[in-house]
């Protein structure tokens, strides 16, 4: 427990030194994985810490991304204005969704969050406020002083820095009184209420924080891709991020990051024609069977793999 910080710190240092040896393609890939890791971490605060399974988390990613593009306009604008706007918009929608959906529980909660995400999806998909189903391009990326996000190296450090900051923030939250309360709610909400905690407020706070952090991921994603489209908010995306958590192993921050890495890399790997030849065109099949194999063989996610191997060695 006390040495919990060693592996993440080593990983963070390695990430900071990595660009020296990366090709442009792999550097891009690391950026993509890191953004999804931020996204997965934000959901972990809900699923793993508080025990709230949301199937609509992509809405906040998408809103963050859309607001980034809309606020940047034709001339770019300042990050100091665009980023807070994107995060605030995501947090505001999270507040609205959370306030209503936290009245429900369990599967109903899963479905209500999904419904609200679908509403956001259809607003962007069917109306003309943001390019309809085609989405919109980000013509000029926002800047801040000397920071130029068009520069791949700078973008890399911004994304990795954000990932480290978000990881540290959630790790701190979990260790704080607030995090202990959330964990208490996950284990036994009734008891927390009896102990005098206004659990609804805590859950809502967690939901809004998670939404805001997903908004940060959306901001980064919009800048990395240079375009947004409604598919960012679709239930496939919400499902994919939940899969990352399950794949990595729910209940640890490391699991969320490992899951994001595994899912994104597997998807990328199975599409590589150089590796799989004609099978690459049918990557969905390979990915599908891999997921099924994971479920069958690794009930505790990738994070449980180590425990299993260590356990096997000890007898």
């Amino acid at each position, binding site marked *: 427990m006390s040495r919990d910080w060693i592996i993440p710190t080593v990983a963070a240092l390695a990430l900071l030194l990595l660009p020296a040896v990366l090709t442009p393609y792999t550097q891009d890939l690391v950026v993509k994985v890191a953004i999804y890791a931020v996204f997965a971490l934000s959901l972990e605060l809900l699923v793993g810490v508080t025990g709230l399974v949301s199937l609509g988390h992509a809405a906040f990613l998408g809103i963050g991304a859309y607001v980034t593009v809309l606020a940047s306009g034709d001339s770019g604008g300042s990050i100091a204005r665009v980023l807070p706007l994107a995060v605030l918009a995501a947090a505001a929608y999270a507040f609205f969704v959370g306030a209503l959906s936290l009245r429900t529980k369990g599967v109903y909660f899963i479905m*209500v969050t*999904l419904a609200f995400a679908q509403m956001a999806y259809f607003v962007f998909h069917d109306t003309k406020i943001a390019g309809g189903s085609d989405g919109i391009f980000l013509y000029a990326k926002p800047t801040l002083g000397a920071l130029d996000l068009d520069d791949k190296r700078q973008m890399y450090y911004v994304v990795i820095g954000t990932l480290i900051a978000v990881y540290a923030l959630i790790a701190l939250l979990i260790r704080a009184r607030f995090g202990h309360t959330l964990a208490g709610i996950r284990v036994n909400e009734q008891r927390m209420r009896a102990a005098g905690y206004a659990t609804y407020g805590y859950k809502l706070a967690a939901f809004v924080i998670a939404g805001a952090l997903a908004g940060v991921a959306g901001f980064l994603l919009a800048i990395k891709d240079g375009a947004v489209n409604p598919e960012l908010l679709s239930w496939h995306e919400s499902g994919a991020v939940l899969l990352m958590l399950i794949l990595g192993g729910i209940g640890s921050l490391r699991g969320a990051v490992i899951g994001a890495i595994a899912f994104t890399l597997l998807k990328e790997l199975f599409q590589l024609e150089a590796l799989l030849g004609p099978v690459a065109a*049918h990557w969905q099949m390979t990915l599908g069977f891999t997921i*099924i194999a994971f479920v069958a063989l690794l009930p505790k996610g990738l994070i449980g793999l180590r425990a299993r191997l260590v356990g096997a060695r000890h007898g």
Partner: protein
Amino acid sequence: MDLPTFLVQCLNAVQYGLLLFLVASGLTLIFGIMGVINLAHGSFYMIGAYMAFALAPYFGDWYLTKLLVGIALSAVFGFVLEWVFFSFLYQREHLQQVLMTYGLILVFEEARSLLVGNDVHGVATPSWLAGGFELGGLMSYPWYRVFASIACVIVALGLYFVVNRTRLGMMIRAGASNRDMARGLGIDIKLLYRIVFAGGVALAALAGMIAAPLSSVYPGMGGSVLIICFVVVVIGGIGSITGALIASLLVGFVDTFGKVFFAEYSGVGVYLLMAVILVWRPEGLMKRAY
């Protein structure tokens, strides 16, 4: 809106709602009894529709025979699927099952693309159901849609009969309300689950087969139906077949008339309905009716 248009829209709403009911009833049964959140349920609808397309050349106008063969095939398919992919999952967490069904969606979509390709295909209506009847002089309403509604009603009645009036239905209800007790009384839960799953798959596939001539068959058709059916199941109250019926008709009307009156925001309507109903009744309209 004049009266004939209104009537046609009402008929469309009912027909769409009934079709949703076929898919949603299987989904609600599988969830209510087996506790499995089956994301792959939309794929079974898709498989049904493609089956209608693939079987069409062999049956021609023997349309009802084709439906029966399709039902049998899909039930067998569901039976095997439960055995291979789900039977070992019940002791695990819900999320593991979600992951499994997500994997299955990918496999089914790709298999569809490999076998049939990615083109949109039309499926002909049988010739004895071609044409339509006059409505108010100007409008005509296709016979096939009438047939679709009637077929759905017959299936719904049959389902009601099976669940409420037969020994199998009794076991299903027993398994839904208390699994351990049902097992204690000597009911073979494993077999029951397999039967329920097979039935759910057959219902979804039947809906797909009926819908195929109306919507044609296209990639991704399972996904949109899946989400709408989840909405239906949740509005109706998970595990309740009556609730699913009421909810699917409600969704049918909101969707159809939403498209007429608020074309641009029509996609939002159904989800708004669900949000409002759940804020009002957090466990759906019918909280486990049986």
